[in-house]
């Protein structure tokens, strides 16, 4: 972000007073035009992001159902949210889901990028195949997998049946439902933007580093840990942040496949907000929950930013 970037290119030269004045008007003109150019965003962000955020904070202290006016009830929404066991259950489910999904997604995505970064035949074809699930609407992916998971006629249990194993009721049993949803999410996440950013990062690692290490007799595992990992660590960090936020907001797949069941086994935080807001029309309590979720995510991101100092390697950019 270079500050010297401006069209009229005002140079900090010594100028005659008269010229100075015209330069001032030029600067004002430039500022006005700049604001005109960004005005759609200014209006949109103010009206559709900031005002709503303030409103939602206000709603969280009121009893509100859209149809009548909000009534101030102080902290009651927050007390009700925290004292209902279902809130803690949903929070726990979301954390479990995130703990299962995010590390696996990042690791497998990196693995795919490493595979595609070798000089193999049909590389473009493999890259296309890997990328394709990320183009499928999450709802459509959910339906494809519903049919794979079907306990009687689905592919998963048909294959297990041939092997003489009685397959589980994937999405229908409390013990396997959340895990089954993680698989659907992985299917859509591994080969998408995450993998492409890893590929780009891998290709920007300078070749000399590998050559030097090879001369020193470092094997491929050593080279991976001491060169590849540090060099791509900013990308790993970036993807961890984005994947964590996305995982906390999981909705489409859950809503379509299980609706939060069976017996709340897949009832995530976002499902809880959706149900409270758009089924029970308790907008006050739903707003309180959105703020709690926002703060939790904010905390998570802050922790990740603090921890990155220990392992993310910046600099040595070539």
């Amino acid at each position, binding site marked *: 972000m270079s500050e010297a970037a401006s069209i009229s290119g005002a140079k900090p030269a010594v100028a005659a007073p008269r010229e100075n004045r015209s330069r001032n008007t030029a600067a004002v003109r430039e500022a006005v*035009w700049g*604001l005109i150019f960004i005005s759609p965003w200014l209006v949109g962000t103010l009206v559709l992001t900031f005002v709503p955020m303030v409103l939602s904070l206000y709603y969280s202290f009121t009893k509100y159902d859209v149809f009548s006016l909000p009534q101030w009830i102080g902290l009651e929404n927050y007390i009700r949210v925290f004292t209902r066991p279902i809130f803690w259950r949903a929070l726990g489910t979301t954390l479990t889901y995130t703990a299962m999904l995010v590390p696996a997604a990042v690791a497998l995505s990196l693995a795919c990028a490493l595979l595609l970064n070798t000089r193999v035949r049909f590389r473009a074809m493999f890259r*296309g*195949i890997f990328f394709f699930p990320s183009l499928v*609407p999450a709802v459509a992916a959910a339906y494809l997998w519903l049919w794979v998971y079907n306990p009687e006629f689905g592919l998963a249990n048909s294959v297990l049946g041939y092997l003489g194993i009685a397959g589980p009721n994937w999405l229908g049993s409390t013990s396997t439902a959340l895990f089954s949803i993680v698989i659907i999410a992985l299917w859509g996440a591994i080969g998408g933007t995450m993998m*492409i950013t890893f590929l780009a990062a891998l*290709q920007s690692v300078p070749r000399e580093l590998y050559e030097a290490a090879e001369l020193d007799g470092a094997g491929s595992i050593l080279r991976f840990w001491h060169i590849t990992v540090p060099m791509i660590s900013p990308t790993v960090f970036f993807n961890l942040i984005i994947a964590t936020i996305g995982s906390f907001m999981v909705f489409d797949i859950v809503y379509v496949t299980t609706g939060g069941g069976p017996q709340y086994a897949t009832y995530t935080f976002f499902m809880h907000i959706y149900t409270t807001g758009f089924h029970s029309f308790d907008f006050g309590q739903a707003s309180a929950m959105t703020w709690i979720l926002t703060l939790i995510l904010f905390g998570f991101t802050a922790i990740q930013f603090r921890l990155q100092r220990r392992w993310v390697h910046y600099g040595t950019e070539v």
Partner: protein
Amino acid sequence: MAAIERDERSYGLSGKVTIYGLLIVFSLFFLVPLAWALLASFKSPAELQQYPQPLLPSEWRWMNWIEVWNVIPLARFFRNTAVITGLALFGQLLSCSLVAYGFARFRFPLRRLLFGVVMAILILPSISYLIPQYVIYTRLGWLDTFLPLVVPWWLAAGPGSAFSIFLLRQFYSNIPREIEEAALIDGAGYLRIWWSIILPLSRPALGAVAVLGFIWHWTEFLGPLIYLQSQENFTLTLGLRFLQTGAADTDVVAQSSDQYLMVATLLACIPPLLLFLVAQRHFIQAITLSGGKG
């Protein structure tokens, strides 16, 4: 590009077997659900209820792919999705390009701070403003219209727009300034410079934003679910759910609709897939332009 690619030969036989083996395992994981659905889309309802489930249909029912258009108003859903995607995408390209140009080339008070806000919106969970937005749109009488799904993009609001602005700004910062200076001396206004010089020059970046935007709009589910109520306004993603929950009260559906659900699901995937095949370059560019460096 081919900076650190290693020659296949240098891996040795076991290494080669591992690499190709893993590539095939991953490919199977990604393709098999699709193939399984494709086979189901040609089966008869009776066959879909058979145990054990046969791999191939005993008789290929091509009619499933035609009948589905009458079982639910699929053409209508396609049209609605296309209209929303088109309008939202057009607004997104126009507004994000304007805003990105403003951030890239002009100096104005608080510019750094405001651009910081753009970046913050990128990671701000959209849930934090979802409910009041719903209230605002309800008050405006926009429920059950396409407006809540389109207008925010014309105002460059939300994380998707923030990403587009970021990407386009990166690109504009690299366009040499001399081109615009010459036009300024010739007396062209800034808007005209943007329209007749910058936009044509930024075709690759706009293409990258456009392909990403298309996928976002086409696959959107939560927005339509909240804002669209009557069946005639449904998008494809809502239509799939409509077909699954049996809300379509035709006799055909009442029997069994799994084969139609599979057909409709696959049909919904075709436009993004076609776009990818045609514009693969733009996809890769979009993602690498955004800087894999974080």
